[in-house]
């Protein structure tokens, strides 16, 4: 079966003091090629853990990840990752970072040069090719991270709060860019975010997770991402159903957060 299958994943962390944390319990879902799914959930519900398992950085205690029919056993170039921050290589310039994947495959510049330069232009980094990473703003650095991931041409892109460290304006621009690149490249994308708006705007599918143990709480199919590809994101926010869905999800997460807070208070 093509696409990405998350099959009955459970994850338990055994802590040094003998206790253990059930970070994920029986999580299953399937992503068809080209789907964009955003993931929301209160802090600590296992979003990052799930993404790390899909990326192959963690082995689940139960279940397996299947990618285009084969089982995932570790990180691979078919599943690219965009981190929140700190994952760029400061000792390479912008172009060096973006071309990292192709270079590691041993391809020579004649092969990747044009594609890398195209991606730099698309992400608006054309004039900053030769700049050092520490000379860029936070938003530019995230664009480098995005371009680097795309230059490697993965089938699935995993993003863990990729825009979390950016200011509101830059963030909005970057959301547009993500949508544009998604449509242009047709990649399968999982995007974790803390912002309900971002999840609504970018998620073709929207997954809400619940904590303790981490599990899927509810899933939505949304029209807004498709609208956003061709329209201004602010117009999309006026679209019918947007506000209602937002309120519904906010309330859902709010309840979960409250439950967590209550529980920790009981423990005291």
């Amino acid at each position, binding site marked *: 079966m093509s696409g990405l299958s998350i099959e009955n994943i459970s994850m338990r962390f055994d802590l040094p003091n003998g206790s253990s944390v059930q970070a994920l319990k029986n999580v299953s879902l399937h992503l068809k090629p080209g789907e964009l799914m955003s993931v929301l959930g209160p802090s600590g519900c296992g979003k990052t853990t799930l993404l790390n398992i899909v990326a*192959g950085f963690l082995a689940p205690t139960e279940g397996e990840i299947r990618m285009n029919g084969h089982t995932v056993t570790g990180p*691979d170039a078919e599943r690219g990752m965009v981190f929140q921050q700190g*994952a760029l*290589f400061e000792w390479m310039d912008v172009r060096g970072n973006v071309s990292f*994947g192709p270079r*590691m495959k041993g391809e020579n510049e004649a092969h990747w040069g044009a594609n890398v330069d195209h991606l730099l232009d698309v992400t608006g980094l054309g004039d900053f090719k030769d700049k050092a990473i520490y000379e860029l703003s936070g938003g530019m650095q995230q664009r480098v991270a995005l371009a680097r991931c795309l230059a490697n041409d993965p089938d699935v892109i995993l993003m863990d709060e990729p825009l979390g460290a950016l200011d509101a304006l830059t963030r909005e621009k970057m959301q547009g860019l993500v949508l544009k690149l998604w449509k242009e490249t047709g990649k399968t994308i999982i995007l974790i975010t803390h912002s309900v708006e971002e999840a609504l705007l970018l998620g073709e599918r929207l997954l809400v997770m619940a904590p303790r143990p981490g599990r899927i709480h509810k899933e939505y199919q949304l029209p807004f991402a498709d609208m956003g590809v061709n329209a201004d994101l602010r117009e999309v926010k006026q679209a019918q159903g947007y506000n209602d869905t937002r309120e519904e999800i906010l309330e859902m997460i709010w309840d979960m957060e409250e439950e967590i807070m209550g529980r920790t208070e009981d423990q005291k």
Partner: protein
Amino acid sequence: MIGLIILLVYVAIFIVSFLIVRFLVQKTTTDYTALKTVTFGDESAVTSNRVASVVSVLTIFLIWGSFTGSVLIPRFLHAPGPFVGETSFTYTIETPEGARDDATIFVRVMGFGEETVKFEVPPGDGIAKDDAVAMPASRSTTIIYDKNDEVTRKDGARLVAIDGETIGPDIALNTDVGRFALTEKGAITFAPPKGLQMEPIWLPPPEAVVGRVIEIANDGYRDSTLWKHLGYSLFRVIAGFFFGALLGIPLGYAMGLSNWFRGWFEPIVEFMRPVPPLALIPLVIIWFGIGETGKIILLFLASLWIMAISARAGVSGVNITKVHAAYSLGASKIQILRNVIIPNSLPEIFTGARVAMGVCWGTVVAAELVAASEGAGMMIMVASKFQLTDIVLMGIILIGVIGFGIDILMRRLENLLVPWKGRS
């Protein structure tokens, strides 16, 4: 006493120059830090004041010159020097019969570095006869005043007064001419005023040190030119550091990447790290003698642990998301080692290298102090045995300058090779 005066002068110059610069010269600073209303505790707002640095260095030379009577600074800035020149005083003796008589002692006090030459004066008349004494400045001398007198101490005569003032076995005397006291046997100890200046044997003036630099640069010292001495020290440092880094960096990497290596070498490294390299000198001398091998091995050991520890820290300090990113971009383990882990550890290694170079430079000088036939340390050690303070000072200054130079060089190199240090 002199130390206290120097300290007071120093503090005074510090305060006065601060006030002058603060209120007269740099009244208006117009840079951006001047716009900050809160600078206390803001490290970026506290920079080194260049004027203060220049004045500070000049002050050291000024005080040095002033208290050594240097010819490089005008006379009126000199601290009062010791008495030099001719002086005289009269002494009065009393014979057992009760008769008294005076005679004059002429003293010629020679300046620093001048030879003391004996001279004669006419004896004059009376029981007591005039004497002549030559002596170096800043010292005291014992004067056998009665060797030409008609009635001597052996005959029962006593010294009772100097310049008319009573003196005795228990009564010392302080006059404008100098300090007087009587020895146990009754001779005069005389010390002309010492002033506040240092004798060259304690602290030579700056020009003497500069003169030595030139002299030794041209003629050499102990069979080697100055450059050869310094070159030997530098060569040892560079060779020792080179081998230390050559072994230490891979060792640190191995310790950062493999449990087995970490477990195997950790006890050794952790034990050797706190052992000061100086404590190894005796053992190294026993095992390898005082030749080049021993010194290079000592410096090798001094830098080895520092380099190993910094390389290990560089590897362990890699942000795991960088490694994850590289993996999901399709890099292999070897590629990650080469393209992520090693470059990421360079800033840490450079910090280690700077520390190691400093430690090596200190250690080589110490090792040469103990035993060597060439080298900066050996030069000052031998010179100190002959009280050649100017060579000792010259050596210390050159050692400081070179150590400083090494550190600046390392920092330049660091900026050039790891410009991202501290900026991610």
